[in-house]
Protein backbone atom coordinates (compact mmCIF):
# COMPACT_ATOMS: atom_id res chain seq x y z
CA UNK A 1 0.00 0.00 0.00
CA UNK A 2 1.41 3.37 -0.92
CA UNK A 3 -0.05 6.80 -1.25
CA UNK A 4 1.40 9.47 -3.47
CA UNK A 5 0.11 13.02 -3.13
CA UNK A 6 1.33 15.97 -5.14
CA UNK A 7 -1.25 18.73 -5.32
CA UNK A 8 -1.56 22.49 -5.72
CA UNK A 9 -4.68 24.52 -5.14
CA UNK A 10 -5.28 28.24 -4.93
CA UNK A 11 -6.77 29.22 -1.61
CA UNK A 12 -7.72 32.50 0.01
CA UNK A 13 -4.50 34.41 0.62
CA UNK A 14 -2.10 31.80 -0.76
CA UNK A 15 -1.56 28.44 -2.34
CA UNK A 16 -1.93 24.94 -0.97
CA UNK A 17 1.18 23.11 -2.11
CA UNK A 18 1.43 19.65 -0.62
CA UNK A 19 3.48 16.69 -1.70
CA UNK A 20 4.39 13.49 0.08
CA UNK A 21 4.77 9.81 -0.57
CA UNK A 22 3.69 7.48 2.17
CA UNK A 23 4.96 3.91 1.72
CA UNK A 24 2.38 2.52 4.15
CA UNK A 25 1.35 2.52 7.81
CA UNK A 26 0.16 5.74 9.37
CA UNK A 27 1.37 8.97 7.90
CA UNK A 28 0.83 12.07 10.02
CA UNK A 29 0.42 15.65 8.89
CA UNK A 30 1.19 18.18 11.58
CA UNK A 31 -0.10 21.70 11.09
CA UNK A 32 -1.95 24.63 12.50
CA UNK A 33 -5.67 25.19 13.06
CA UNK A 34 -6.09 27.06 9.79
CA UNK A 35 -8.10 24.54 7.80
CA UNK A 36 -5.17 23.59 5.57
CA UNK A 37 -4.93 20.08 7.01
CA UNK A 38 -8.63 19.45 6.40
CA UNK A 39 -8.39 20.86 2.89
CA UNK A 40 -5.51 18.48 2.11
CA UNK A 41 -7.46 15.48 3.34
CA UNK A 42 -10.57 16.61 1.47
CA UNK A 43 -8.57 16.76 -1.73
CA UNK A 44 -7.42 13.18 -1.16
CA UNK A 45 -10.98 12.07 -0.41
CA UNK A 46 -12.28 13.78 -3.55
CA UNK A 47 -14.53 16.23 -1.71
CA UNK A 48 -12.41 19.14 -2.96
CA UNK A 49 -10.66 19.27 -6.31
CA UNK A 50 -7.05 20.47 -6.55
CA UNK A 51 -6.13 22.83 -9.39
CA UNK A 52 -3.29 20.58 -10.46
CA UNK A 53 -1.29 17.56 -9.40
CA UNK A 54 -1.68 13.87 -8.88
CA UNK A 55 -3.04 11.59 -6.17
CA UNK A 56 -2.47 7.86 -6.47
CA UNK A 57 -3.26 5.01 -4.10
CA UNK A 58 -1.19 1.97 -5.08
CA UNK A 59 -1.92 1.49 -8.78
CA UNK A 60 -5.17 3.44 -8.73
CA UNK A 61 -4.94 7.04 -9.86
CA UNK A 62 -7.53 9.01 -7.88
CA UNK A 63 -6.71 12.36 -9.40
CA UNK A 64 -4.45 13.45 -12.23
CA UNK A 65 -4.88 16.91 -13.68
CA UNK A 66 -2.77 16.13 -16.74
CA UNK A 67 -4.60 12.91 -17.59
CA UNK A 68 -7.97 14.47 -16.73
CA UNK A 69 -8.73 11.85 -14.06
CA UNK A 70 -10.81 12.80 -11.04
CA UNK A 71 -12.60 9.87 -9.40
CA UNK A 72 -15.72 10.87 -7.42
CA UNK A 73 -15.52 10.31 -3.63
CA UNK A 74 -17.84 7.31 -3.80
CA UNK A 75 -15.47 5.45 -6.14
CA UNK A 76 -12.23 6.16 -4.29
CA UNK A 77 -12.82 3.80 -1.35
CA UNK A 78 -11.24 6.34 0.95
CA UNK A 79 -12.72 6.58 4.44
CA UNK A 80 -12.92 10.01 6.04
CA UNK A 81 -13.34 10.52 9.76
CA UNK A 82 -14.63 14.05 10.35
CA UNK A 83 -13.65 15.98 13.49
CA UNK A 84 -17.16 15.73 14.95
CA UNK A 85 -17.89 12.29 13.50
CA UNK A 86 -20.61 13.58 11.13
CA UNK A 87 -22.98 10.76 12.00
CA UNK A 88 -26.38 10.98 10.32
CA UNK A 89 -28.43 12.58 13.11
CA UNK A 90 -31.82 11.21 12.07
CA UNK A 91 -30.63 7.61 11.98
CA UNK A 92 -29.68 5.26 14.80
CA UNK A 93 -26.12 4.00 15.08
CA UNK A 94 -27.21 0.66 13.61
CA UNK A 95 -28.80 2.42 10.64
CA UNK A 96 -25.69 4.56 10.18
CA UNK A 97 -23.53 1.45 9.93
CA UNK A 98 -26.08 -0.37 7.78
CA UNK A 99 -26.07 2.47 5.23
CA UNK A 100 -22.28 2.36 5.03
CA UNK A 101 -22.40 -1.42 4.50
CA UNK A 102 -24.95 -1.06 1.73
CA UNK A 103 -22.88 1.73 0.14
CA UNK A 104 -19.13 1.31 -0.08
CA UNK A 105 -19.15 -1.77 2.15
CA UNK A 106 -21.38 -3.82 -0.12
CA UNK A 107 -18.47 -6.19 -0.73
CA UNK A 108 -18.56 -7.15 2.95
CA UNK A 109 -22.19 -8.28 2.93
CA UNK A 110 -22.87 -9.53 -0.60
CA UNK A 111 -22.63 -13.29 -0.80
CA UNK A 112 -20.75 -14.77 -3.72
CA UNK A 113 -22.93 -15.18 -6.80
CA UNK A 114 -25.93 -13.49 -5.17
CA UNK A 115 -27.48 -10.54 -6.94
CA UNK A 116 -29.24 -9.18 -3.87
CA UNK A 117 -28.00 -8.66 -0.36
CA UNK A 118 -29.80 -10.71 2.29
CA UNK A 119 -31.01 -8.49 5.16
CA UNK A 120 -30.04 -11.17 7.69
CA UNK A 121 -26.42 -11.03 6.52
CA UNK A 122 -26.41 -7.24 6.86
CA UNK A 123 -27.91 -7.47 10.35
CA UNK A 124 -25.23 -9.94 11.42
CA UNK A 125 -22.48 -7.73 10.01
CA UNK A 126 -23.90 -4.63 11.73
CA UNK A 127 -23.87 -6.47 15.06
CA UNK A 128 -20.29 -7.59 14.40
CA UNK A 129 -19.24 -3.99 13.84
CA UNK A 130 -21.03 -2.83 16.98
CA UNK A 131 -19.22 -5.48 19.03
CA UNK A 132 -15.83 -4.83 17.45
CA UNK A 133 -15.99 -1.09 18.12
CA UNK A 134 -17.32 -1.38 21.69
CA UNK A 135 -20.80 -0.15 20.82
CA UNK A 136 -22.70 -3.12 22.27
CA UNK A 137 -26.20 -2.11 23.30
CA UNK A 138 -25.90 1.32 21.71
CA UNK A 139 -27.03 0.36 18.22
CA UNK A 140 -30.58 1.58 18.76
CA UNK A 141 -29.51 5.00 20.02
CA UNK A 142 -29.42 8.18 18.02
CA UNK A 143 -26.10 10.08 17.82
CA UNK A 144 -27.35 12.85 20.11
CA UNK A 145 -27.90 10.25 22.86
CA UNK A 146 -24.23 9.22 22.86
CA UNK A 147 -21.24 10.83 24.51
CA UNK A 148 -18.61 12.47 22.32
CA UNK A 149 -16.29 9.50 22.68
CA UNK A 150 -19.06 7.04 21.72
CA UNK A 151 -20.00 9.22 18.75
CA UNK A 152 -16.42 9.17 17.56
CA UNK A 153 -16.26 5.39 18.01
CA UNK A 154 -19.50 5.02 16.06
CA UNK A 155 -18.20 7.29 13.30
CA UNK A 156 -15.03 5.20 13.15
CA UNK A 157 -17.07 1.99 12.97
CA UNK A 158 -19.23 3.46 10.20
CA UNK A 159 -16.16 4.54 8.26
CA UNK A 160 -14.69 1.03 8.51
CA UNK A 161 -18.04 -0.45 7.42
CA UNK A 162 -17.54 1.43 4.15
CA UNK A 163 -14.65 -1.00 3.48
CA UNK A 164 -12.01 1.67 2.74
CA UNK A 165 -8.52 1.04 1.37
CA UNK A 166 -7.22 4.23 2.93
CA UNK A 167 -8.54 6.12 5.94
CA UNK A 168 -8.19 9.83 6.56
CA UNK A 169 -8.39 10.96 10.17
CA UNK A 170 -9.18 14.66 10.34
CA UNK A 171 -8.33 15.86 13.85
CA UNK A 172 -10.30 12.92 15.26
CA UNK A 173 -9.49 13.61 18.90
CA UNK A 174 -9.98 17.38 18.88
CA UNK A 175 -13.30 17.29 20.74
CA UNK A 176 -12.18 14.77 23.36
CA UNK A 177 -10.61 15.54 26.71
CA UNK A 178 -7.17 14.28 27.72
CA UNK A 179 -7.96 10.94 29.38
CA UNK A 180 -10.66 9.94 26.88
CA UNK A 181 -8.46 11.03 24.04
CA UNK A 182 -5.69 8.64 25.06
CA UNK A 183 -8.24 5.83 25.33
CA UNK A 184 -9.69 6.34 21.83
CA UNK A 185 -6.27 7.04 20.36
CA UNK A 186 -4.88 3.69 21.51
CA UNK A 187 -8.01 1.90 20.35
CA UNK A 188 -7.86 3.43 16.87
CA UNK A 189 -4.14 2.84 16.67
CA UNK A 190 -4.69 -0.84 17.54
CA UNK A 191 -7.38 -1.23 14.88
CA UNK A 192 -5.38 0.55 12.17
CA UNK A 193 -2.29 -1.54 12.93
CA UNK A 194 -4.29 -4.76 13.36
CA UNK A 195 -6.04 -4.44 10.03
CA UNK A 196 -2.87 -3.26 8.28
CA UNK A 197 -4.81 -0.45 6.71
CA UNK A 198 -3.07 2.68 5.48
CA UNK A 199 -4.01 5.89 7.29
CA UNK A 200 -3.33 9.60 7.09
CA UNK A 201 -3.74 11.50 10.34
CA UNK A 202 -4.07 15.29 10.29
CA UNK A 203 -3.62 16.91 13.66
CA UNK A 204 -2.35 19.97 15.44
CA UNK A 205 -1.43 17.99 18.54
CA UNK A 206 2.17 16.85 18.95
CA UNK A 207 1.29 13.92 21.20
CA UNK A 208 -1.31 12.53 18.80
CA UNK A 209 1.07 12.82 15.88
CA UNK A 210 3.87 11.19 17.85
CA UNK A 211 1.66 8.36 19.10
CA UNK A 212 0.11 7.43 15.77
CA UNK A 213 2.44 8.57 13.01
CA UNK A 214 5.09 6.27 11.55
CA UNK A 215 6.31 9.08 9.34
CA UNK A 216 5.48 12.76 9.65
CA UNK A 217 5.44 15.92 7.59
CA UNK A 218 4.63 19.44 8.70
CA UNK A 219 2.38 21.81 6.79
CA UNK A 220 2.69 25.51 7.45
CA UNK A 221 1.44 28.42 5.39
CA UNK A 222 -0.11 25.98 2.92
CA UNK A 223 3.21 24.35 2.06
CA UNK A 224 4.30 20.90 3.16
CA UNK A 225 7.76 20.17 4.48
CA UNK A 226 9.76 17.09 3.48
CA UNK A 227 8.58 13.89 5.15
CA UNK A 228 10.70 12.53 8.01
CA UNK A 229 10.70 9.52 10.32
CA UNK A 230 8.98 10.08 13.66
CA UNK A 231 12.05 10.31 15.90
CA UNK A 232 14.02 12.30 13.35
CA UNK A 233 11.12 14.72 12.85
CA UNK A 234 10.85 15.57 16.54
CA UNK A 235 14.57 15.58 17.31
CA UNK A 236 15.86 17.28 14.17
CA UNK A 237 13.19 19.27 12.34
CA UNK A 238 14.79 20.56 9.18
CA UNK A 239 12.97 23.84 8.68
CA UNK A 240 11.89 26.81 10.73
CA UNK A 241 8.22 25.94 10.08
CA UNK A 242 8.68 22.36 11.27
CA UNK A 243 10.65 23.54 14.31
CA UNK A 244 7.85 25.89 15.35
CA UNK A 245 5.25 23.13 14.98
CA UNK A 246 7.39 20.62 16.86
CA UNK A 247 7.70 23.05 19.72
CA UNK A 248 11.33 24.17 19.50
CA UNK A 249 11.25 27.15 21.82
CA UNK A 250 14.57 28.73 21.01
CA UNK A 251 14.79 29.82 17.39
CA UNK A 252 17.28 32.53 16.51
CA UNK A 253 17.44 34.15 13.10
CA UNK A 254 20.85 33.38 11.62
CA UNK A 255 23.06 35.38 9.28
CA UNK A 256 25.43 33.35 7.15
CA UNK A 257 28.85 35.03 7.25
CA UNK A 258 30.60 32.46 5.06
CA UNK A 259 29.89 28.80 4.17
CA UNK A 260 31.10 27.68 7.60
CA UNK A 261 30.03 30.43 10.01
CA UNK A 262 26.59 31.70 11.01
CA UNK A 263 25.89 34.52 13.43
CA UNK A 264 22.77 34.73 15.53
CA UNK A 265 22.75 38.42 16.50
CA UNK A 266 19.90 38.08 19.02
CA UNK A 267 21.94 35.56 21.04
CA UNK A 268 25.28 37.18 20.32
CA UNK A 269 26.63 33.79 19.24
CA UNK A 270 28.76 32.75 16.29
CA UNK A 271 28.15 29.14 15.24
CA UNK A 272 30.65 26.94 13.45
CA UNK A 273 30.03 23.19 13.31
CA UNK A 274 32.78 20.59 13.03
CA UNK A 275 32.80 16.91 12.08
CA UNK A 276 34.46 14.07 14.01
CA UNK A 277 37.86 14.95 12.52
CA UNK A 278 37.53 18.55 13.70
CA UNK A 279 37.08 19.96 10.21
CA UNK A 280 34.46 22.70 9.77
CA UNK A 281 31.22 21.55 8.19
CA UNK A 282 29.56 23.54 5.43
CA UNK A 283 26.30 25.14 6.50
CA UNK A 284 23.23 24.97 4.25
CA UNK A 285 23.25 27.89 1.79
CA UNK A 286 19.61 28.62 2.62
CA UNK A 287 20.14 28.55 6.40
CA UNK A 288 17.54 30.77 8.04
CA UNK A 289 17.81 30.09 11.73
CA UNK A 290 19.44 28.13 14.51
CA UNK A 291 17.17 26.20 16.85
CA UNK A 292 17.65 24.65 20.28
CA UNK A 293 15.12 22.47 22.11
CA UNK A 294 14.50 23.88 25.60
CA UNK A 295 15.19 20.43 27.03
CA UNK A 296 18.62 20.18 25.42
CA UNK A 297 20.24 22.75 27.73
CA UNK A 298 22.41 21.46 30.53
CA UNK A 299 23.67 23.31 33.58
CA UNK A 300 27.05 21.57 33.45
CA UNK A 301 29.45 20.28 30.82
CA UNK A 302 28.40 16.76 29.73
CA UNK A 303 30.76 13.97 30.84
CA UNK A 304 33.38 12.67 28.43
CA UNK A 305 32.30 9.98 25.97
CA UNK A 306 34.90 7.30 25.04
CA UNK A 307 37.52 9.45 26.70
CA UNK A 308 36.70 12.34 24.36
CA UNK A 309 35.33 15.71 25.37
CA UNK A 310 31.81 16.21 24.00
CA UNK A 311 31.67 19.33 21.82
CA UNK A 312 29.25 21.87 23.27
CA UNK A 313 28.17 25.47 22.93
CA UNK A 314 28.17 27.57 26.07
CA UNK A 315 25.66 30.36 26.72
CA UNK A 316 25.99 32.87 29.55
CA UNK A 317 22.88 33.35 31.68
CA UNK A 318 21.69 36.87 32.46
CA UNK A 319 18.53 37.87 34.33
CA UNK A 320 17.26 34.30 34.89
CA UNK A 321 13.62 33.78 35.91
CA UNK A 322 12.39 30.47 37.31
CA UNK A 323 8.97 29.06 36.42
CA UNK A 324 7.07 25.78 36.41
CA UNK A 325 4.50 24.05 34.26
CA UNK A 326 2.57 20.89 35.18
CA UNK A 327 5.41 18.63 34.08
CA UNK A 328 8.48 20.82 33.70
CA UNK A 329 10.71 23.30 35.44
CA UNK A 330 11.82 26.23 33.33
CA UNK A 331 14.48 28.91 33.48
CA UNK A 332 14.08 31.88 31.16
CA UNK A 333 17.23 33.86 30.62
CA UNK A 334 18.91 36.36 28.34
CA UNK A 335 22.05 35.06 26.60
CA UNK A 336 23.35 38.64 26.14
CA UNK A 337 24.09 41.11 28.90
CA UNK A 338 22.19 43.94 27.23
CA UNK A 339 20.00 41.94 24.86
CA UNK A 340 16.23 41.63 25.00
CA UNK A 341 15.94 38.15 23.45
CA UNK A 342 15.24 35.42 25.98
CA UNK A 343 15.95 31.71 25.80
CA UNK A 344 14.17 28.93 27.65
CA UNK A 345 15.78 25.99 29.37
CA UNK A 346 13.52 23.25 30.67
CA UNK A 347 13.89 20.03 32.58
CA UNK A 348 11.36 17.41 33.66
CA UNK A 349 9.95 17.82 37.16
CA UNK A 350 10.32 14.15 37.92
CA UNK A 351 13.67 13.49 39.57
CA UNK A 352 14.72 17.14 39.76
CA UNK A 353 14.36 19.74 42.48
CA UNK A 354 13.44 23.42 41.99
CA UNK A 355 16.27 25.45 40.51
CA UNK A 356 17.71 28.52 42.19
CA UNK A 357 18.03 30.80 39.15
CA UNK A 358 20.89 32.70 40.78
CA UNK A 359 22.95 29.49 40.82
CA UNK A 360 22.78 29.13 37.03
CA UNK A 361 25.67 31.11 35.58
CA UNK A 362 25.93 29.43 32.20
CA UNK A 363 24.26 26.63 30.26
CA UNK A 364 25.58 24.14 27.70
CA UNK A 365 24.15 22.48 24.60
CA UNK A 366 25.73 19.57 22.77
CA UNK A 367 26.75 20.76 19.30
CA UNK A 368 25.05 17.75 17.69
CA UNK A 369 21.74 18.83 19.25
CA UNK A 370 21.79 22.28 17.68
CA UNK A 371 19.36 22.53 14.78
CA UNK A 372 20.32 24.15 11.50
CA UNK A 373 17.01 25.31 10.12
CA UNK A 374 16.34 26.27 6.52
Amino acid at each position, binding site marked *: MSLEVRIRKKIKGGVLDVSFHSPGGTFALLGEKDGILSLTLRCI*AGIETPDEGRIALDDTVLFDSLAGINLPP*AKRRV*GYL*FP*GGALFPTLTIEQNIRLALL*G*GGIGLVQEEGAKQVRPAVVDTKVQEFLREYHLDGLGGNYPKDLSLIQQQQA*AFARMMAGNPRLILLDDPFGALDGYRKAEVLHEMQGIVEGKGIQAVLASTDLDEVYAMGDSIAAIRGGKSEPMQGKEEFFAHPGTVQAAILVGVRNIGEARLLDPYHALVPAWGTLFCFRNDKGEPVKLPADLKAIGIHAGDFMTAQPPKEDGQKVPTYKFPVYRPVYGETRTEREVRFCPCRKGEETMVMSMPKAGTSPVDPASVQRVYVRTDRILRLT
Partner: protein
Amino acid sequence: MIAAALVMAIVVTIAARLLLVPLALLVNKAPRWFSLLVDILFVAGAILVSAPIVYVLTAAGLRRVNRETVLAAQTLGMKGGVIRRKVILPQARGWIRAGLILCFLRAFLDSVVVQMVYFFMILR
Protein backbone atom coordinates in the same frame (compact mmCIF):
# COMPACT_ATOMS: atom_id res chain seq x y z
CA MET B 1 -43.05 46.76 19.74
CA ILE B 2 -43.41 43.08 18.90
CA ALA B 3 -46.90 42.99 20.45
CA ALA B 4 -47.96 46.03 18.41
CA ALA B 5 -46.65 44.44 15.24
CA LEU B 6 -48.55 41.22 16.03
CA VAL B 7 -51.81 43.11 16.63
CA MET B 8 -51.29 45.05 13.41
CA ALA B 9 -50.63 41.81 11.48
CA ILE B 10 -53.83 40.23 12.85
CA VAL B 11 -55.94 43.31 12.00
CA VAL B 12 -54.54 43.51 8.48
CA THR B 13 -55.06 39.78 7.90
CA ILE B 14 -58.70 39.91 9.05
CA ALA B 15 -59.36 43.01 6.92
CA ALA B 16 -57.87 41.30 3.87
CA ARG B 17 -60.09 38.26 4.41
CA LEU B 18 -63.22 40.44 4.75
CA LEU B 19 -62.37 42.20 1.49
CA LEU B 20 -62.74 38.87 -0.31
CA VAL B 21 -66.38 38.44 0.84
CA PRO B 22 -68.00 41.03 -1.53
CA LEU B 23 -65.94 39.58 -4.36
CA ALA B 24 -67.36 36.13 -3.65
CA LEU B 25 -70.89 37.59 -3.61
CA LEU B 26 -70.23 39.29 -6.94
CA VAL B 27 -68.96 36.05 -8.47
CA ASN B 28 -72.18 34.28 -7.46
CA LYS B 29 -74.27 36.72 -9.54
CA ALA B 30 -72.00 36.55 -12.60
CA PRO B 31 -72.33 33.97 -15.42
CA ARG B 32 -70.97 30.46 -14.76
CA TRP B 33 -67.89 30.74 -17.03
CA PHE B 34 -66.87 33.90 -15.22
CA SER B 35 -67.17 32.34 -11.78
CA LEU B 36 -65.11 29.36 -13.00
CA LEU B 37 -62.44 31.75 -14.26
CA VAL B 38 -62.39 33.60 -10.96
CA ASP B 39 -62.13 30.25 -9.12
CA ILE B 40 -59.13 29.33 -11.22
CA LEU B 41 -57.57 32.71 -10.54
CA PHE B 42 -58.25 32.21 -6.84
CA VAL B 43 -56.41 28.87 -6.89
CA ALA B 44 -53.53 30.32 -8.94
CA GLY B 45 -53.31 33.28 -6.57
CA ALA B 46 -53.31 31.00 -3.54
CA ILE B 47 -50.48 28.96 -5.08
CA LEU B 48 -48.53 32.11 -5.92
CA VAL B 49 -48.90 33.39 -2.38
CA SER B 50 -48.14 30.06 -0.74
CA ALA B 51 -45.28 28.91 -2.94
CA PRO B 52 -42.74 31.38 -1.56
CA ILE B 53 -43.55 30.25 1.98
CA VAL B 54 -42.86 26.62 1.09
CA TYR B 55 -39.81 27.60 -0.97
CA VAL B 56 -38.26 29.80 1.69
CA LEU B 57 -38.80 27.27 4.47
CA THR B 58 -37.59 24.33 2.38
CA ALA B 59 -34.49 26.31 1.36
CA ALA B 60 -33.88 27.21 5.00
CA GLY B 61 -34.20 23.55 5.94
CA LEU B 62 -31.79 22.45 3.24
CA ARG B 63 -29.29 25.11 4.28
CA ARG B 64 -29.37 23.72 7.80
CA VAL B 65 -28.46 20.20 6.70
CA ASN B 66 -25.07 19.38 8.18
CA ARG B 67 -22.84 19.51 5.08
CA GLU B 68 -20.34 17.14 6.66
CA THR B 69 -22.97 14.40 6.83
CA VAL B 70 -23.53 14.74 3.08
CA LEU B 71 -19.78 14.62 2.45
CA ALA B 72 -19.49 11.63 4.78
CA ALA B 73 -22.24 9.87 2.83
CA GLN B 74 -20.36 10.53 -0.41
CA THR B 75 -17.11 9.12 0.94
CA LEU B 76 -19.03 6.08 2.21
CA GLY B 77 -19.91 5.25 -1.38
CA MET B 78 -23.63 6.08 -1.12
CA LYS B 79 -25.49 7.00 -4.31
CA GLY B 80 -27.15 10.37 -4.92
CA GLY B 81 -30.72 9.11 -4.49
CA VAL B 82 -29.91 7.37 -1.21
CA ILE B 83 -28.12 10.47 0.06
CA ARG B 84 -31.16 12.65 -0.73
CA ARG B 85 -33.62 10.16 0.78
CA LYS B 86 -31.70 9.05 3.86
CA VAL B 87 -29.45 11.99 4.73
CA ILE B 88 -30.69 15.30 3.32
CA LEU B 89 -34.49 15.11 3.45
CA PRO B 90 -34.76 13.69 6.98
CA GLN B 91 -32.63 16.58 8.29
CA ALA B 92 -34.74 19.18 6.47
CA ARG B 93 -38.04 17.41 7.24
CA GLY B 94 -39.09 19.73 10.06
CA TRP B 95 -38.74 22.84 7.94
CA ILE B 96 -40.48 21.32 4.92
CA ARG B 97 -43.32 20.17 7.16
CA ALA B 98 -43.63 23.66 8.66
CA GLY B 99 -43.85 25.15 5.16
CA LEU B 100 -46.56 22.72 4.13
CA ILE B 101 -48.61 23.34 7.28
CA LEU B 102 -48.38 27.12 6.82
CA CYS B 103 -49.28 26.72 3.17
CA PHE B 104 -52.28 24.57 4.02
CA LEU B 105 -53.51 26.98 6.70
CA ARG B 106 -53.21 29.88 4.33
CA ALA B 107 -55.07 28.07 1.59
CA PHE B 108 -57.71 27.04 4.11
CA LEU B 109 -58.20 30.66 5.22
CA ASP B 110 -58.21 31.96 1.64
CA SER B 111 -60.84 29.55 0.38
CA VAL B 112 -62.78 27.66 3.04
CA VAL B 113 -63.23 30.52 5.51
CA VAL B 114 -64.30 32.94 2.78
CA GLN B 115 -66.73 30.35 1.42
CA MET B 116 -68.15 29.81 4.90
CA VAL B 117 -68.68 33.51 5.52
CA TYR B 118 -70.30 33.83 2.10
CA PHE B 119 -72.50 30.80 2.81
CA PHE B 120 -73.74 32.26 6.10
CA MET B 121 -74.43 35.63 4.44
CA ILE B 122 -76.57 33.89 1.75
CA LEU B 123 -78.49 31.99 4.46
CA ARG B 124 -79.23 35.20 6.27
